[in-house]
């Protein structure tokens, strides 16, 4: 099942980084809610409150487009916060030269205007390099406070990367919501 695969990969990668806490059990205990979030990630868009479905009617989606991923209103960027990697010689799922994709991410749930479907988007920071500085964007559809970290875009999401220095942000599809 994909949910476990993603989760397992994340745990495995974090385990390798934090070698002093190498057992899955102790890492689980250590990460606490963050891991809960990891497990929850693919499921949030269908949560009971239906907030994401309600959010579809909001401003971002009305102006979203699917042609130019170097613009803030590109459909995947509905909960983006940061410099677009697509403006920094990276891509929507590629880090620019010298930066490393974080193994962790926050998530959003965005509507693709081409098919009308809602997709779960993982916003990954590219890390290990000072800010790119091109195309700053902020969108807050479904964005939550830091005490709900997986949905918060104010956090430097370089957890698990070799360096916590933030360079830019991409937006990869994790699945249909």
């Amino acid at each position, binding site marked *: 099942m994909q949910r476990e695969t993603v989760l397992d990969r994340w745990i495995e990668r974090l385990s390798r980084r934090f070698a002093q806490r190498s057992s899955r059990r102790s890492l689980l205990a250590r990460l606490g809610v963050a891991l809960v979030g990891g497990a929850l990630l693919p499921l949030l868009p269908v949560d009971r*409150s239906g907030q994401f479905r309600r959010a579809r009617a*909001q401003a971002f989606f009305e102006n979203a487009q699917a042609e130019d991923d170097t613009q803030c209103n590109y459909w995947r960027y509905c909960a983006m916060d940061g410099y677009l990697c697509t403006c920094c010689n990276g891509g929507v799922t590629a880090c620019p030269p010298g930066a490393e994709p974080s193994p962790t991410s926050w998530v959003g749930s965005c509507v693709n205007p081409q098919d009308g479907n809602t997709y779960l988007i993982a916003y990954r920071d590219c890390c290990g390099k000072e800010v790119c*500085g091109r195309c700053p964007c*902020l969108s807050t559809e479904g964005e*939550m406070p*830091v005490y709900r970290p997986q949905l918060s875009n104010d956090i430097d999401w370089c957890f698990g990367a070799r360096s916590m220095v933030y360079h830019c942000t991409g937006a990869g599809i994790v699945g249909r919501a």
Partner: protein
Amino acid sequence: MRSSLAVAVSILALATGVGQAQQATQAPPGQERLDVTEEWSTVTLPEASPHWIWVLDVAFDNLIASRINIFDGDSGKFLGVVHSGFVPNLLLSPDKREIYVDETYWSRGSQGDRVDVVSIYDARTLLRTGEVILPQGRALIVPKLPTAQLSPDGRFLLSFNMNPATSVSLVDIRERRYVGEIETPGCSFVYPTGPRSFSLLCPDGSFADVTYDDSGRAQIANNQPFFDAESDPVFEHAAIDVAGGRGYFLSYEGMFYEVAFENGRTRVTDRWSLTTAEEKEDGWRPGGWQLVSWHPGLRRAFVLMHRGPRWSHKQPGEEVWVVDPEANAIVDRFALEEPSISLLVTPDAEPLLATLTDTGVVGIYDPESGEHLRSIDGTGVTPFLLHAAGG
């Protein structure tokens, strides 16, 4: 060989130079020279006025090179700057003698070894007088007030960690040493609630209440959720009145939660909506960044409000609404010159209200009349937070 060569050549140069100097000394007779020589000094600041506004500029274009610019809210004058590191937090000692910056550096700019540190500055000379290293790091998030806080007496600095597991580092400011880490799994931030206590916000919409002692021993107590973290979360920024034993939290949709602090425990005493049905219909919501400030003398909360759709919780405020928590009422509201992301009411008896736009313009208002007194430009590239001493 290298050093003898050096001496030989420099003696040559020196001889030439002295020759020229002597020649020049003999030039134009009768001409006055060196009749004035001005002495140089360094400016020292007076004790901070409560009307000084400290603007924390996270500097998104160069996150490793943030800065804290200080202005006199009465005159608009620039008073000084403290250069800081990656996503810093600023704390001003209650006695106004020191400044603490909770910050992160790398040994080669943005490369090399990371160090997390509380930097200590003298508030009058702005010289860096010491530091305490945080061995467990710190939360690297865009600066928010509750990310680091002082105990009310200024003795301890509490610095929130997220790696992504959460905890709070305890630093003994008086003894200049790291005491230890208080584990706070899953809950975030530091809201001081008493002399040796603080609370955190948990993902289920509850507080976790922590008490600690001077040696860093801590006890944590959980509570029932008081808001719906799925549908209407409270903002991270809140109005905290430790001395008064009260805190005020507000939600994306404008719910106002009143919290009593009693012996290190939280108790939600009241909840009501800042907006009427009609105002809701018009889209009025709280929003921005540092969107609420409390004045203990006036006993009023000042809240940035805007008209916008759901999920516009970071949109700058176009009005300030003045909240009386005893009457559960908005007692005043006034429009701002420019939409602003942050605001601060100074803590003194004749307070100023300072606002901040996302382009670095500080507005100064009379918080009681709403009158716009002046604006200060150029307070930062991407500033986010306002501070005042003794607040």
